[in-house]
């Protein structure tokens, strides 16, 4: 349904980047360190509204997420960041009351078109959750689970090793692959969840507050890892931690909660979406400025 993204193909596209450079949107080459290749959109959201039981949790979001970028979604609690990120791999489908309006294009293809199978979507768009959620299995079986259910059974061991290496976890767990995943620390569990996600060769990794349950050292390791991973993957991260967004992300979307007319329901909206540096140093909206400088929130 979607083109299968394999590493050689990706590398070829990266080499062929200068031609597509005309498609660059927003921010010039001088706006800080940027990936050298083109700003190809992975997701194009237009007018996306996600509702629970008909009540909008996040409304009228239009933004583009670029390839090999880390895109951060920041904002106060209840502004719909998690709801928004979960609609990028159709995890909201698992909540019966949720509905999505507007269009979410993934490499130009509507994710919510009738013939699109959400299972196929999630194969390409992996997700790491707020709380580390390893399966009650061994470390090896945790990473091997995805390849196994997707039928990637050739050379499973080297696939697992590769994923653990890319998640910077291999050296710490290589001697106890058969031990329970619950026996490692919280930070290691979260990197295990990232490895699990990498093992199925995704195109995009969605991270929903991946460090909120971790100490600063583990958080630092995950952030280093993200910077490493963005060479091969596109990453969208929801975070409560503005410093984290400032440290790792290329672009930042700031969401704000608004009360509706009846003052009963809270709806999140994107206030500003731009280069991270600009959002944090020279925001275009006073509400963003108040938030990132700590005057509110």
């Amino acid at each position: 349904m979607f083109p299968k993204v394999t590493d050689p193909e990706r590398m070829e596209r990266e080499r062929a980047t200068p031609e597509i450079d005309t498609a660059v949107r927003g921010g010039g080459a001088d706006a800080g360190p940027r990936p050298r290749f083109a700003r190809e959109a992975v997701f194009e959201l237009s007018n996306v509204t996600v509702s629970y039981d008909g009540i909008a949790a996040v409304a009228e979001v239009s933004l583009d997420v670029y390839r090999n970028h880390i895109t951060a979604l920041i904002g106060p609690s209840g502004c719909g960041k998690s709801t928004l990120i979960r609609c990028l791999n159709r995890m909201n489908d698992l909540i019966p009351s949720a509905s999505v309006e507007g269009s979410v294009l993934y490499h130009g293809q509507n994710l919510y078109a009738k013939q699109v199978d959400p299972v196929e979507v999630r194969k390409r768009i992996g997700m790491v959750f707020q709380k580390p959620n390893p399966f009650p299995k061994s470390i090896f079986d945790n990473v091997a689970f995805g390849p196994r259910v997707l039928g990637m059974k050739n050379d499973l061991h080297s696939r697992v090793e590769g994923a653990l290496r890319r998640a910077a976890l291999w050296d710490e767990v290589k001697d106890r692959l058969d031990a329970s995943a619950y026996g490692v620390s919280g930070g290691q569990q979260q990197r295990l969840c990232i490895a699990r996600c990498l093992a199925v060769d995704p195109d995009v990794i969605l991270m929903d507050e991946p460090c909120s349950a971790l100490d600063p050292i583990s958080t630092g390791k995950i952030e280093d890892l993200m910077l490493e991973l963005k060479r091969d993957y596109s990453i969208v991260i929801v975070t409560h931690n503005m410093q984290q967004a400032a440290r790792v992300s290329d672009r930042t979307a700031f969401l704000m909660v608004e009360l509706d007319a009846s003052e009963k329901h809270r709806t999140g909206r994107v206030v500003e979406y731009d280069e991270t540096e600009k959002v944090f140093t020279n925001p275009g909206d006073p509400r963003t400025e108040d938030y990132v400088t700590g005057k509110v929130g």
Partner: protein
Amino acid sequence: MSAPPPAPPPDVTTAAAPRVPLAIPHAPRGARLKELAFRGGMLACLGVALVTLAAVLIQVFSKGIGRVDLNFITDLGSSIPDRAGIGAALVGTLWVIAVCIAFIVPVGVASAVYLEEYADRSRWYNRWIEVNIQNLAAVPSIVYGILGLAFLVRGPLSLGHVVLAAGLTLALLVLPVVVIAGREAIRAVPPSIRDGSMALGATKWQTIWKQVLPASVPGFATGVILAVSRAIGEAAPLIVVGGATYLSFYPSGLGSDFTVLPLQIFNWISQPQEEFKDLAAAGMIVLLGVLLVLNAVAVWLRNKYEKKW
């Protein structure tokens, strides 16, 4: 300790010092007495249960233990007390329980999975099924006996008074126990495990089969063993289904006539001779032994597969 410092320096922390004395008073005498009386009362209630159990056990063991030996366990029914044994009933119980387990495990797991993972609770028929499963667990066992007689022994299936009919009757009787325990077990699997699996591109079925069910094995196992423990002790429905009270051969298969431990005990108790009453006590010891073994297996399974999230 009990009085505030005489000249508190004018700083914020001591300015807000508590006005009440800091020494903690003893609890009033009355409260302690009440506490003691309450504890004593609860212990006495527990005592009623324990004393009754002890009385039964002492009675049964003092009468029956002398009769429990290898011959008693292997011998068939006989009208001469010295030759009568529990062998046929023990083998019959094993057969009937095997049929029962073979039925309740797949059907119970499938029902629990449907109700927890697929049933849309906004539909009236799903809510109706749920309520009725709760109700079925409370239906008297004799009613299942009549059901078994009408539908399995005679009627549509016409199996006759055989092991298969008895096993299926007991299976219907205890199925709600398995379904309810299984649903609890499935519900105890945290949603984060399901999310993690679905986010990797696993289908719902793969998520259930490879994550949810393995994680709920201990809950299911406990439910099945509780159900089997109940089934083993049932006499009433099997009287109706036509269990023999005297069998001169070992039940040999699904189509064989049968008797089970509770029926054999019931039969011996209703004999006039005193020797048969001793046999009944010995039979109860065997029945208790089987139940104890089953419960031990349940505890072992639960500990072995217990999961921490």
